[in-house]
């Protein structure tokens, strides 16, 4: 135990620190609070209030306007559809691959693992042109599936790596009883292994949920030719360009976009923060 840490002076300075961190924290998340308040203000109130975070007379119709007139209802469903598909396909494909790579001695397995490690270090992010070309060849241009396959494809390496690492830690005995009973390969994967890897499913689900929901670049590129395919983030960018003076509506749309992801984060923050921390621990 460190000397002095229990003294009254140390306790007082800790309390002072807590108060300081609270005040700084308020300013840290102020843009979000201000946005929430702005979504309930009248246009003239928004103009006059400046940095105030207390809307006088809450204008709930701003949300209805954003949803219908601003088409954010449509964008919301696009975002939900894309995110749901991306998250489930990422979990399915990467757990399947992780299973084969960690629990079997399939010939060629080592080659695939080496490829995965190399790919983890290849430069990414500036390859959108060939990706665009492939999407065109596949006939997926101007569909939501373009965004989904690009998001899933981009994230599989990392999540396969996570599944592989986690599944390696399971004892070998877990499959043996099922194999004695003559359970098939897919059956063992689905009914024996998958129920045992809940924590890593949660981590992969969280990361791909936040990555997909917040993705701006991919849906921006693939909705350029068809505005009905916009996601919330792209919709906000476009709306601002077309109606830059509809401030309260932009705030309502921002709130619609931010609330799902912040809610999920607040409930599952422990898993998310632990997953992030794992990046430097490993």
């Amino acid at each position, binding site marked *: 135990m460190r*000397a002095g840490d229990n003294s009254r002076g140390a306790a007082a300075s*800790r309390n002072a*620190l807590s108060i300081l*961190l609270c005040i700084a*924290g308020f300013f*840290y*998340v102020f*843009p979000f609070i*201000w946005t929430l308040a702005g979504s309930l203000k009248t246009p003239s109130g*928004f*103009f006059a*209030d*400046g*940095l105030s975070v207390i809307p006088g007379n809450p204008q709930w119709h701003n949300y209805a306007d954003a949803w219908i007139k601003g088409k954010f209802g449509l964008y919301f469903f696009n975002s939900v559809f894309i995110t749901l598909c991306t998250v489930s396909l990422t979990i399915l494909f*990467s757990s*399947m*691959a992780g299973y*084969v790579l960690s629990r*079997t001695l*399939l*010939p060629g397995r080592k080659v695939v693992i080496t490829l995965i490690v190399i*790919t983890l270090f*290849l*430069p990414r*992010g*500036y*390859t959108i*042109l*060939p*990706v*665009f*070309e*492939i999407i065109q060849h596949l006939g997926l241009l101007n569909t939501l599936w373009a965004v989904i396959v*690009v998001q*899933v*494809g*981009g994230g599989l390496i990392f999540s396969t790596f996570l599944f592989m690492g986690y599944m390696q830690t399971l004892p070998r005995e877990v*499959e*043996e009883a099922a194999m004695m009973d003559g359970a098939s*390969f*897919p059956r063992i994967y689905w009914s024996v292994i998958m129920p045992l890897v809940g924590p890593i499913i949660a981590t992969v689900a969280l990361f791909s949920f*936040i990555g997909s929901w*917040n993705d*701006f670049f991919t849906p921006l590129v693939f909705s350029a030719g068809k505005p009905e395919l916009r996601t*919330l*983030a*792209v919709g*906000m*960018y476009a709306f601002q360009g077309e109606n830059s003076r509809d401030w309260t509506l*932009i*705030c309502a749309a*921002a709130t619609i*976009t*931010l609330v799902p*992801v912040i809610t999920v*984060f607040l409930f599952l923050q422990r898993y*998310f*923060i632990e997953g992030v*921390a794992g990046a*430097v621990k490993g």
Partner: protein
Amino acid sequence: MARKDPPDTLHASHLRDSVWGYLFLAPMFILTLTFVIYPIFGSVRIAFYNWDGIGNPTQYVGWRHFMGVAKDPWFWGALKHTVIYAAVLVPVQLFLALILALLLNNSRLKGVNFFRALYFMPVVTSGAVVGVVINLLFGNFASGLSAPLIKLGLISTPLDLLGSPSLALGCIIAVGIWHTLGYNLIYFLASLQAVPEELYEAAEVDGASKVQRLVHVTLPSIRPMMVIIVFMAILGSLGQFDLVKTMTDGGPYYASDLVSTYIYSYAFASSHGMSQSNYGLASAASLFMSLMVFGFTMLQLLAIKVSRKERGVS
């Protein structure tokens, strides 16, 4: 060859299971090959052709696009802004995150988890949405930041932070620091928690002050992880797109154009005095950027290796 323990071939002994194995690998393998590995090489090919994005590129133009990029002052401007962005953001953000992590790394402080979540929150929000909201806050109409300043009589006309060529990039850097600081806070906290308590106790027995403990115990102990944190921050900042696209779109007068927005404007819009997309030029610029990112990745691996050797871990 007989192995010591029976081979853990749980399935591979059966041909049918091998087939299942390859089927299970196939989706991951095919999607990664198509959307990650092939595009890296594909962008090399596009850079040598004139291509308008329809059908196959056919007109081979050799190194012309690379020369075009090398001669384009807008590209060098964008590269300069990208370097400034990373060179300012990374040290400032890491310094602030380290201070905050040192304050929060106190088991007796109440509500550490609450503060951690609070300062981490911007990380989980979309850069594009943040950019649009910040536009309202910094906007050049009499609201947000400007309104209280006008009321106080400090300024007479609304500030136009993002419309000013000399301030726009600085504003984006400031928002960038705020937006992803939480990552580094968590990295530093995890590193600090890994420092063995005995080291502190030994330093205390030797009569080390708080500052001495920080300089001689804490910082050397987290140095190996610091290397990883620094490179992750550099690589992350080189990829910045969302904030710039939504806050200024590279403007005003390309004063905040980054390589990422430069590439985008050549590939998908008409900008920089162009009337048509120029995929070849965009690809050549992408390649240049990829090489730079690849160089940093290699440097990172080298730095990690060196710091491991120093610690005597092989």
